[in-house]
């Protein structure tokens, strides 16, 4: 496992994900990806689901990837990496590896569309089969690549292009699917939540290093605030991510061996959810008097979930 001491040293790691990609200014994807790929000194083979990261990082004849990288489709990043990992095992067994002196780790990236929804089956299958890989979900809570449609990661009340606010609608009707817990229920040896953040950079870097060095299927659900679809200024990305954590809308925790839950950051004083919602245009309509109940519902859900996490941690289950 890579020893990560300070931000300066970490930031000076040679880039495996190069600049010049076409992600939006202020996009959190590149911050998360750079942290993950820099969290190990081992060589990497990466698969990426169709989505913002893929369309912005490998537009022929250019590539941002200074590691071996493959994109097949929207729903199969986990299946693709499981195939590559199986080949690594096969060639190791047969003494046919290309570089005997290098150790290779396998990482898959997918957005919430490619992970919570269309790619869920292949992720579940790859996790169940026990391939040695890390899957990182870049969770921006919508299909941002195709113009901001809802996904099963879209939270209650959010305006998206397929759950628009309107005269008779307050936006998304469902609560966000709890994918992190679902992956823990697969018995993955390590799952965690994370955010791109100046304050919590080490939380993500440490989790990524831990996940990559753990043998077996590991999963990180990284909240990826989306300046374009969440409607906040590009320079506010990490602030919004920090607010998600400080309000407990997106708590930072990890689960080992499918059940040992540990909260990795505990806000000193939980901030009311309005502070998080009001900073994003996608929730603006919730502040109309008739939608006040949704904010109350949000707060209730956040409180209950935070309470649930703390009880689990305390009970050691």
């Amino acid at each position, binding site marked *: 496992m890579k020893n990560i001491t300070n931000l300066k040293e970490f930031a000076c790691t040679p880039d495996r994900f190069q600049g010049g990609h076409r992600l939006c200014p202020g996009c959190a994807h590149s911050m998360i990806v750079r942290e993950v790929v820099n969290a190990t000194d081992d060589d990497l083979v990466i698969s990426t689901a169709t989505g913002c990261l893929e369309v912005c990082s*490998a537009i022929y004849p250019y590539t941002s990837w200074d590691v071996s*990288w493959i994109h097949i489709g929207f729903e*199969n990043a986990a299946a693709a990496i499981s*195939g*590559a990992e*199986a080949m690594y095992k096969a060639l190791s*067994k*047969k003494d046919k590896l290309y570089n005997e002196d290098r150790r290779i780790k396998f990482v898959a990236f997918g957005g919430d569309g490619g992970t919570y929804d269309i790619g869920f*089956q*292949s992720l579940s299958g790859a996790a169940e089969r026990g391939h040695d890989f890390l899957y990182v979900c870049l969770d921006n809570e919508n299909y941002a690549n195709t113009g901001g449609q809802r996904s099963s990661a879209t939270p209650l009340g959010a305006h998206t292009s397929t759950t628009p606010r309107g005269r008779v609608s307050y936006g998304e009707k469902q609560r966000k699917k709890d994918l992190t817990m679902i992956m823990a229920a697969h018995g993955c040896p390590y799952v965690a939540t994370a955010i791109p953040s100046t304050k919590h950079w080490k939380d993500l870097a440490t989790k990524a290093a831990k996940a990559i060095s753990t043998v077996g299927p590991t999963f990180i659900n990284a909240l990826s605030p989306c300046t374009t679809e969440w409607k906040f200024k590009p320079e506010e990305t990490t602030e919004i991510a920090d607010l998600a954590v400080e309000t407990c809308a997106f708590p930072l925790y990890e689960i080992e061996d499918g059940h040992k839950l540990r909260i990795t950051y505990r806000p000193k004083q939980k901030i009311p959810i309005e502070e998080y919602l009001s900073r994003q245009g996608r929730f603006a309509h919730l502040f109309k008097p008739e939608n006040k109940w949704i904010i109350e519902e949000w707060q209730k859900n956040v409180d209950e979930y935070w309470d649930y996490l703390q009880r689990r941690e305390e009970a050691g289950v």
Partner: protein
Amino acid sequence: MAQKYELKSKEVWDGNMAAAHALRQAQVDVVAAYPITPSTPIVQNYAQFLADGYVDGEFVMVESEHSAMSACVGAAAAGGRVATATSSQGYALMVEVLYQASGMRLPIVMTVVNRALASPLNIHGDHSDLYLGRDAGWIHLIANNPQEAYDMTLCAFKIAEDERVRLPVTTNQDGFLVSHTAQVVKPLQDEDAYKFIGEYKPLNPMLDTKNPVTYGAQTEEEWHFEHKANQHKALMDSPAVIKEVFDEFEKISGRKYNLVETYKLDDADIALVLMGSAYETAILAVDKAREEGIKVGLLMPRVFRPFPYNEVAEKLKNVKAVAALDRSAPMGTTGALYNEVAGALAANGQSAIMTNYIYGLGGRDTTVEHILDVIKETNENAKAGKRVTDLQGFINLRGPKLSFN
């Protein structure tokens, strides 16, 4: 190290066992698959080989055919020999990834056991799945019996992995009629089969991490066309390699394969064109018809893609009438084989009278007598010098006669 499997000079194998042994002998590095009737025994047999120590590659039983082909693509791009098996609905679920496999020029071998496509659900043999994948950028080889299923699968690896080709290849055998019909198969010994296929030749492997590569990039209007045109060129150029591989295979096995197979076509007045197990039925029908004085011959494209249109036209240049038999519902036009053959003849200024027959859907029996009827109708066209029978007829279809003109 995998153990050697002791084989007799003659084995009694069905098509599935034949294909499974070919995968074993190829020492495939990764097989990723999902079971589906009637190809299931291929992966079952392979699993047993693994369990008994005859296979030392990885065997990944995934959760769907979509993931099977996706894992094959990931594994092939990683840099090693890859194979899978499927049929019908599984094939249909893979289609998206079939295009991605060929677009990335990955030499995956897929042993397909052809089966009807639902709805209505049907587990028996026809060519609907093969036709579904015909534009997917794969080379499609046809096997009419277990021996050919074995031989074509060995050849498939050598063709797919050749530096001049680097394209995925399917081998096709009819569901149940070939896959579950045990016949005598003369296998090669393990070392001879492996020597014929050769060591896997890596090309841009992802696992060579000292030289990182990007697979599956995005190309829009400025590059997509060039990529697809190049891919098409690779297919169009592949027959030279396919012929080489068939010639080499003949040297070690004594069995001769061609881009286009024929039977008694040299002096024929009329010809039937068909693929799959029915070709063997048609051989019996041709012999009978010739006893009755009808000079009929057969033609089968051994390679359905790339379609050997010039060879087909050349072989059919002296016949007066041709019936193309398609084992797939044409759904609104003439059958695909009919269209290919008609196009091949037209491109070469030939004007044999052409008719189309649809047969054997969902495993419906097609007997020697049925084929004899087709031969007689085709002969009527030849004698009349014009088409006097229906453009499209249906063989052994129940209910009132169905035909289109």
